């Protein structure tokens, strides 16, 4: 009985500590104010149920607390660490919610992940050390042990929901420091036994001093709450304290902290499993190469045609760069991007655009194009071009980062599929033309490092600078 008493004492002490708070939160959706000056705080050791009619702003409040929505006034602060830090404020400051558990109304997962990878990935993002044994034990308890190696896309809706809920609960359960869990309709689609487990876990997490906010309509989930906060259509919050008598579940022992580059690992792992990025970029580039080759056979290899030959050489590699990166498709799936944005905070957009880069294809593609198209061009010029083609490939790799950032801007729109995003990519024609001009100069007069307009090195530098500016504009401006 001794350990239990000590735990209860710890819970009593930490219960007074505010872990997450919102001050004067105003969130607009178009001309409509969804949240109007909301003040809210979540303390350790409590399960707070967030209730309200449809459209009252429950999900918006929960997602704003996760830093997902820009706000016109107010701020969200986290106090679970030794110093108070900003999750997000109306000035545009962004922090992260690393260490939190987050379950959105939709699953927020890519279908190509396996169940085990998802839970382990959520723990890694939250900064927990790998503990495969504990994770397998948890999966078995939740009836997912036999599905551990299955892709999420192969699961039924109810099982997917279990995984989504677990990926919010487990990282916090493994954290010895008081932390926060944000759950939006977690019991939606769960069967009776899973709901029972969920409620037991909520009570157990609260007993360990964590703070839990649950947006719900489910009367069964409400029985697990210590406090019920009701949000009205005018964003007024009323709270009511209650006493939950539910049994607590057995939680795994906390494990040590460890930092991981999980987003990079996640993106690489999914591409290895389902290489839609490589195929999606490679196939159009090969078709472009075929067309370029067909066109080039009728072109005389003389200096008046060098600009055309240069454009044909660069086109296949350029096409690999402007194709929609697979990471953006994966992040659009079931709001997986929102989950990652909340977890990675301010730098998420920049990271996503860098992860969407076409890193490997431009180099072989540009050399292959030259090999196919150059034909009987003189050997002196051929060797000069071969010597400097890598520089063009390097700018095209940069260009693909900018293209990726532009795709990200479009994917942020609610109905991104209804937008002709390719029109934005046309802006990248400009650096492409600069590169064409530079390659033409090298073909005509060889490489020159003279710092004057029209010289190849300057043309390449202008193309590179244009690309960097475009990238910065697409990444920085949308982040408030």
């Amino acid at each position: 009985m001794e350990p239990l008493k000590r735990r209860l004492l710890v819970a009593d002490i930490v219960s007074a500590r505010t872990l997450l708070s919102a001050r004067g939160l105003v969130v607009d959706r178009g001309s409509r104010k969804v949240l109007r000056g909301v003040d809210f705080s979540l303390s350790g050791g409590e399960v707070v149920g967030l209730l309200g009619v449809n459209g009252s702003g429950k999900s918006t409040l929960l997602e704003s607390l996760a830093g997902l929505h820009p706000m016109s006034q107010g701020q969200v602060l986290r106090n679970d660490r030794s110093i108070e830090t900003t999750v997000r404020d109306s000035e545009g400051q962004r922090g992260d919610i690393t260490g939190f558990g987050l379950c959105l109304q939709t699953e927020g997962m890519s279908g190509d992940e396996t169940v085990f990878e998802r839970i382990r990935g959520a723990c890694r993002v939250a900064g927990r050390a790998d503990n495969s044994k504990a994770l397998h034990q948890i999966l078995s308890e939740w009836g997912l042990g036999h599905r551990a190696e299955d892709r999420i896309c192969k699961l039924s809706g109810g099982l997917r929901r279990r995984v989504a809920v677990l990926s919010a609960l487990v990282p916090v359960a493994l954290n010895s420091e008081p932390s926060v869990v944000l759950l939006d309709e977690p019991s939606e689609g769960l069967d009776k036994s899973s709901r029972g487990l969920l409620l037991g876990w909520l009570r157990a997490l609260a007993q360990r001093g964590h703070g839990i906010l649950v947006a719900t309509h489910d009367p069964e989930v409400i029985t697990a709450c210590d406090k019920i906060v009701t949000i009205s259509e005018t964003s007024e919050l009323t709270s009511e304290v209650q006493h939950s008598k539910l049994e607590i579940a057995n939680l795994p022992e906390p494990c040590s902290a460890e930092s991981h580059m999980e987003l990079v690992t996640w993106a690489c792992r999914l591409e290895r499993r389902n290489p839609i990025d490589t195929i999606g970029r490679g196939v159009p580039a090969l078709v472009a190469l075929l067309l370029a080759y067909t066109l080039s056979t009728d072109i005389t290899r003389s200096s008046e045609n060098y600009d055309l030959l240069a454009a044909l050489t660069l086109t296949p590699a350029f096409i690999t760069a402007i194709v929609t990166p697979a990471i953006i498709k994966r992040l659009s799936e079931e709001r997986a991007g929102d989950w990652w944005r909340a977890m990675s905070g301010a730098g998420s957009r920049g990271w996503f655009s860098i992860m969407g880069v076409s890193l490997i294809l431009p180099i072989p593609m540009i050399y292959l194009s030259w090999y196919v198209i150059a034909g009987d061009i003189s050997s002196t010029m051929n060797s000069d071009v071969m010597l400097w083609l890598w520089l063009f490939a390097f700018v095209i790799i940069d260009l693909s980062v900018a293209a990726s950032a532009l795709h990200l801007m479009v994917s942020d729109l609610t109905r991104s599929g209804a937008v002709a995003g390719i029109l934005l990519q046309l802006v990248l024609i400009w650096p492409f033309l600069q590169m064409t001009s530079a390659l033409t100069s090298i073909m005509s007069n060889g490489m020159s490092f003279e710092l004057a307009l029209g010289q190849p090195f300057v043309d390449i530098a202008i193309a590179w600078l244009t690309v960097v500016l475009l990238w910065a504009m697409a990444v920085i401006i949308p982040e408030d």
Partner: protein
Amino acid sequence: MDFRESGYALTYLGLAGIVFVSILGLEYAPGLKPCTGGGCWGAPEAYRILYLHVPFAWCSFLSFSVLFYGSLMWYLKRSEEAWVYFQSGADLGVIFGLGVITSGPIWASAEWGRPWDWGDMRLNSFALLTAVALFLLYSRQSQPDTQQTRDTLSAVGLFGFALVPITAGATTWWETTHPEVLVVESTETVGMSPDVRSFLLISFGLMCILFTGLLLLSNKRYRLAAEVSDRKNELDQEGIS
């Protein structure tokens, strides 16, 4: 010997036979005359890859026939057994299709001076066939296993098979760079010499043994996968104890 063991035995036998015939093809098979039947070879010695390339191509057609059978049976019966054949056909289509489109360019580089001819119907339609098989492989793995998914992929499987006669007849209907392979019509003076033809048929026979072994193993694998999936679904229904 049970079903599964015979799959392993045939696969190992086929693999050993292919290695054996490759060595024979390189070292002991008769060479080509530099000029035969009105045409001359640029690299007559490079022809030896034919002993792998042509059997790969024919077994690729067999794979697509299995895929066609699986697709058609799926539409007619909606049976798990049909889906097993569909999956095996697609997987074998990738294996043998990749065999064709990687061995072909090796010969083409020596003979034509370039690995690929974008204007040749046979080459392009074979690449398309392999692309269809690859599409089926990745799509099947990345989609939920529902009837809608199976219906859609089966339709693609039927489309893939429709490409087979086009690919097979391409060298006859569109005479371009790819040489026409004459086997039945070959005589002492027309087509390939009897020695080359015998070697080719032996090689094809061994490749067929490999194909059969892989088909048996693949079918067994997918039957077991279906059983595992059923068992997992039962466990899902049992819920959390």
